[in-house]
Structure formats: C-alpha cells, structure tokens
C-alpha cells in the first residue's frame, strides 16, 4: 500500500463523506423528516465501509506476510510438506527453530564425542613416548645392559606402529570434528529467514498502526493521550540470557569486568 494510494483513498473517503453530509444537511433544511433517517444511515454506512476496507487490506497484507514466510533453505528437509500448500508458516517457523537447536546439539555432541575419544589416545602417545625417552637417554649414555636394550628395541618397534595407527585415528576424529561444524551454514540460513519474517511482520505492524490512526480519524474516536506507562521496575532480577549489545554501560564486557565489579563489592 503506497502513500499516494492512501492519500487518494483518503480524499475519496472525505469526498464521499462530504457528499453524504451535504445530502443530510439538505434533508434537514428541507425538513424532509422521512428521509433524514436514511441520510444518517447512509453517512454511517459510508464511514463504516471505509474502515472495513482499510482493516480488510491490512489483514490481507499481514496474512500474506505470514503465509509467504518459508524458511526452508533446501527443499530436501524431511517435513512432508505438500507443494503449494498455503498454510501459515508461523508454526513451521517454530519447528525450524527447534531444528536449529537440534542441529547445534547434534553437532556439539558429535564434536565432544570425538574430543573425549581423542584425549586418551593423545595421552597414551605422550606417556609411551616419555617412557621411551628415558630409556633412550640411558642408551645414549651407554648405561644400558644388552638384555634391556633388546626390550627397548622391541618397545620402540611397538611404539612406532602404535603412534602411526594413533595419528591416523586422531586425524580421522579431527576431520569428523571439522565436518560437525556444518550446522553453522544450515542454521545461519534458517535464522536469516526468521529475521526477515520478523522484519516483514514489523513492517506490517507499523502499517497497521498507521491505518489504526486513520480509523480513529475517520470514526472520530478520541485518542487516549495518556502515554503508555513504562513498565514499573520489577523488584526481582530476571534472567536475560546472553547480552547481544555488549557496549551498554550496564553490561560487563568480560570476565575482567566481572572480577573488578566483584572486588569492588569486597570479593
């Protein structure tokens, strides 16, 4: 709905109302009592019709914005959705956001599985290398008996085999970790779509506010001039989740800031 359309619309409304009002005045002046009632109703109906048209347009616009919301970045996602199905996608958006949570959870789990499996392997390589290093040093200093040397020889052989196998196992795990980060791309796309839906809804709401203002004007409703009271400060402190705007003065910038604040409180 462009501004010009709206102005034309508004002029048309005013002309319509003026014509009918003049007709009413004429009837009143002529003392045409039988037709005064009809003229009043006519005027009323014209006013109502325009309100309905405006509200109807808005409702359609809002509905379109919601229906057009489709955040499926790849149609391959298993959601059994029929093509061309024109249901509201709002519920779907909630599912998609759940999908983001699931995807990030799966990825985090997979990554941590790999880390948990990898740490003991790295630990064992370290421990065995450390032990060999000690004996290797004794060999270099010629402090080793031939019997011990044979043992070291065997252990060295085993260690080389073991470290070869372990490092391929570790690379495999590191690659799995790398691949587990693919969620970023997928969730990013879904979240971007949600952001644009929110923007569309916001624009529609602004438009709704604007039309609501005109409806008030058309109907002559008295605007409530009382400013909405700012919500009274809640006594208890609520959890807010991560602070997105970290440059705000009432938000700490990091752990150092937390430590400073706590030490100022005697911690």
């Amino acid at each position: 709905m462009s501004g010009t359309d709206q102005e034309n619309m508004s002029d048309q409304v005013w002309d319509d109302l003026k014509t009918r009002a003049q007709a009413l005045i004429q009837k009143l002046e002529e003392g045409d009592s039988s037709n005064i009632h009809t003229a009043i109703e006519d005027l009323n109906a014209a006013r109502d019709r325009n309100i309905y048209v405006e509200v109807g347009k808005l409702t359609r616009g809002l509905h379109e914005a919601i229906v057009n919301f489709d955040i499926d970045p790849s149609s391959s996602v298993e959601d059994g959705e029929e093509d061309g199905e024109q249901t509201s996608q709002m519920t779907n958006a909630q599912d998609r956001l759940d999908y983001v949570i699931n995807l990030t959870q799966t990825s985090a789990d997979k990554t941590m599985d790999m880390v948990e499996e990898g740490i003991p392997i790295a630990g064992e390589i370290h421990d065995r290398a450390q032990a060999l290093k000690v004996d290797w040093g004794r060999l270099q200093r010629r402090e080793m008996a031939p019997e011990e040397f044979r043992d070291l020889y065997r252990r060295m052989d085993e260690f080389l085999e073991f470290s070869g196998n372990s490092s391929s196992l570790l690379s495999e795990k590191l690659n799995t970790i790398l691949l587990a980060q693919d969620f970023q791309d997928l969730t990013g796309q879904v979240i971007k779509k949600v952001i644009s839906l929110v923007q569309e809804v916001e624009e529609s709401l602004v438009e709704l506010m604007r039309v609501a203002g005109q409806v008030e004007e058309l109907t002559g409703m008295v605007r409530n001039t009382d400013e909405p009271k700012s919500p009274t400060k809640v006594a208890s402190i609520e959890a807010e989740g991560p602070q997105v705007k970290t440059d705000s003065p009432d938000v700490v910038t990091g752990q150092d800031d937390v430590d400073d604040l706590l030490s100022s409180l005697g911690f």
Partner: protein
Amino acid sequence: MDKDMKILIVDDFSTMRRIIKNLLRDLGFTNTAEADDGSTALPMLQNGNFDFLVTDWNMPGMTGIDLLKAVRADDRLKNMPILMVTAEAKREQIVEAAQAGVNGYVVKPFTAAVLKEKIEKIFERIG
C-alpha cells in the same frame, strides 16, 4: 583442594554441562553429577553430600539465582561454595548474585583457565 570432592553441575543445556564436566575432569575433578535446573538440583544437594556447586543462572523451572538463595537458606547447605557460570552479564545481576552469597562468577563464553582460576580462588579463600 580435594580432587575427590563431589561437584554438582547445574545447567539446562546438556552441551554446557558436558563442557564443564570435561573441563573439571581436565583439572582433576572426576566426582561430578549433573542436574538440568534448580528444582532437580536442590533435592540432590539435600541428599547427596556435595562439596561444591557449579550452576547456570537462566534455566526453566527454578533458576540458578533462586537455587543459590535456597541453598543459602538451608541450614545444612548454607556453607556450600557456589560458582555461577552464566551468560547473564548485567552489572545488577552480578551484584544480585554477590549479595545472595555466590562465591565466584564466570561469564560465558569462558576459558578453561578462567574456570580453573575461579575454582582455585574459591577454595583458597574458604581454606
């Protein structure tokens, strides 16, 4: 510091519990248990001989700040050291937690080094 002390980790996200559990294990603490919010944590604390509590703030059900207050109000638990590990980063929130009797406060995202430092500091202070 007793490496065998029993630690309860409270966070609604299993990922975060797992990260904290792994970091604690890396620091030598292996005796840990988990709860996903204050209302499941509190009975565990009351029955479980825990030595240390690590809790998030923002959780469904009972929040971490309410858990902190409940622990401080419980005669048998009131001396338990509590570390808050949370994304809540407003000054008034940190002040609130301090006034409620928290022993340490770590903001997410955090590093292993910060967690270690705060835990050491808590046990240094309480001896």
